[in-house]
């Protein structure tokens, strides 16, 4: 039914904006779109108030493209830069209270599972490093301990960008930022290590330098969360404003940081690996006869 709700009823076509029809007919709702096709079709996220050159915006754009079932996905965010774009995307978005994302997602996912037994409804948390590692830390950890079946994506710009550049737990040690006038005193929080300890089924660390890899990672994380357990993606999405990265150099910075300390890493539990290998094999089998 979900897809039907967005299709334009015959007879109403002339009343709905061309943009909406374009989204339904050519957007990623009805066709699987590749990263290489970006720019050639109507996207889930187009207009947004993000800063010029923002790496987070690129990451969000690719993430939305990669969702395995856009028409059955709900995104949960919180205060921060990311939600400025997410709340304007053509996808249901919950903007709750500070630090509540993973608790809201737990209730939402469980409720949807009660109501839609045979139809997967994907819940994706997308929030910043402050929202997830600082104020929302407890909710994040407990959603992992409870093995809640949804994906958590951290948009890690290593700073409170939206409030004007204060240090966060994910800021690197020594960085001079607001509220860290003498440089941050402690190490960047090891959320990946904590995710492993908590038994998260699939964990990935990624920078937005390779959009196709971003898309594949997101798809994998959402599908594994659907069947196995919690998944976590930690994405370096630099803040070119607070870290004074010249706009044309944003991707250069991402490549440098990736090489230096944010290289692509993925980790799967045995359960997740078994599921993923089987589902990929099934998918190949399913695809094979169609290509003949």
């Amino acid at each position: 039914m979900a897809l039907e709700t967005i299709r334009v009823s015959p007879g109403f076509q002339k009343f709905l904006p061309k943009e909406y029809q374009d989204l339904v007919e050519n957007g990623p709702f009805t066709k699987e779109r590749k990263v290489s096709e970006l720019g050639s079709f109507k996207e889930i996220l187009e207009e947004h108030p993000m800063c010029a050159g923002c790496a987070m915006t690129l990451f969000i754009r690719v993430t939305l493209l990669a969702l395995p079932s856009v028409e059955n996905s709900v995104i949960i965010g919180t205060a921060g830069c990311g939600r400025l774009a997410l709340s304007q995307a053509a996808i249901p978005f919950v903007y709750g209270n500070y630090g509540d994302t993973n608790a809201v997602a737990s209730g939402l996912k469980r409720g949807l599972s009660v109501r839609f037994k045979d139809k997967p409804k994907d819940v994706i948390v997308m929030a910043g490093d402050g929202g997830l590692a600082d104020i929302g830390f407890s909710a994040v950890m407990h959603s992992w301990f409870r093995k809640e079946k949804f994906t958590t994506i951290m948009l890690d710009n290593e700073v409170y960008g939206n409030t004007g550049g204060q240090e966060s737990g994910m800021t690197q040690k020594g960085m001079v930022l607001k509220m860290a006038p003498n440089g941050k005193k402690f190490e960047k929080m090891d959320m990946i290590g904590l995710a492993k300890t908590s038994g998260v089924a699939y964990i990935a660390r990624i920078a937005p330098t390779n959009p196709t890899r971003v898309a594949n990672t997101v798809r994998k994380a959402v599908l594994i969360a659907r069947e196995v357990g919690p998944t976590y993606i930690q994405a370096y999405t630099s803040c070119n404003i607070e870290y004074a990265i010249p706009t044309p150099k944003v991707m250069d910075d991402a490549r440098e940081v990736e090489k230096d300390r944010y290289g692509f890493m993925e980790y799967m539990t045995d359960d997740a690996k078994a599921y993923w290998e089987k589902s990929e094999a099934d998918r190949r089998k399913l695809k094979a006869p169609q290509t003949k």
Partner: protein
Amino acid sequence: MSEGLGEEVKTNPQGDVITAAPAPTKEAKKGAAAQRVVDPDYLFLQAPREKTFITGSEAAKEAIRRANVDVAISYPITPQSETMQQVGYLYAEGYVKDYYRGEEEYGVMSAIAGASRSGVRCLSATAGPGLMRGLEVISSWPGGRLPAVLLIMCRVINAPLAIQPDNVELSYMLNTGCLLFHAENQQDFYDYALAAFMIGEKPEVTLPVAVAVDGFFVTHARGWVSLPAADIKLPPRDCYHEAVPMMDNENPPIRISRDAPIQKSNFISYQMHASWQQEIWAAQERSRKWIERWLGGLVEVVNPKAKIMIVASGAAVSQSREAVRQAAEQGIEVGLVKIKSVRPFPAEEVRAALDHAEKILVPEFNYVGWLAKEVKSTIRGSERVISGPRVFGGMSMPTELILEYIMGTPNRR
């Protein structure tokens, strides 16, 4: 074999009996599966009832058993009441579809916000410090237009550390936008909790409902409760007929940034926010007709013509009833206005009931006197109101104390 005979009964430091969680019996599971949906009017007003002698917490459990709850989320907040663990047994027996113990109240109340957005019927319970911890989220439920039921077993707010019954925490609930009912006794707690689900989910209401009861005096004590049979339950939540779309991607249009930030600094945003807030409080008013239908009105008035009137809510009503009886024995006619619904506040009813009164008492189980303030700000001639007697910090309210206030005006400044 007679089970448990001769065995030592273990209790916790508060004196509650410690019981290991019993595994659900096959019989119990059959009971849940055999329940049939009935019309709310039938369940609330017409179904034959039988009297049982149970605690307030058990009365709540019996309400939940018949409420067709989908998701219940709990946190112990020791010492609260055993209600949410009782709901756990209902889950094990199949009466509740999903249930878990959350990380703490902020997480629990947030998860309720998520569950309610998914379109399921949901429930939690808390008290005192736990309520305060969850209050940021609870205050945002009405704005999200999220129907859910929150049971509050009043337990005072900490510092100095306290576990005693005292309903000061309700003063913080008055301005959240949630509906707030205050149960007098075990019977009320059953009736109000069950009706709360249907009232909050009405399309023209679409709001969370908090049902409060005074801790210990009602939650831990037994009272007579008339219950309909356990084989009937409420119809499920009809989420597509509510005021806002569900976050389930099933209702068009798919672009429903219902929770979009509207806090930008421009006139349209101010206007949106203002009208949204107005709408919450207007929705509260629209709940009145259902409260009248299912709870028999927002108030109950005893001896309406008496010159001395008492206004009370919660357990203070029971004590006041007894004081009214004792005063009558001494030849003094005293009236009583029981406030069932604190939000919406029955302003018209209270005004009408007190217009003729020469002296008005407001006995309360808290220091701040939140109900007295409500009454004073509602009626004409507020100098007639004596804000008291008040007891707090876990003290009981002897009827003699109320009688003293009826006869004279102790400590009147």
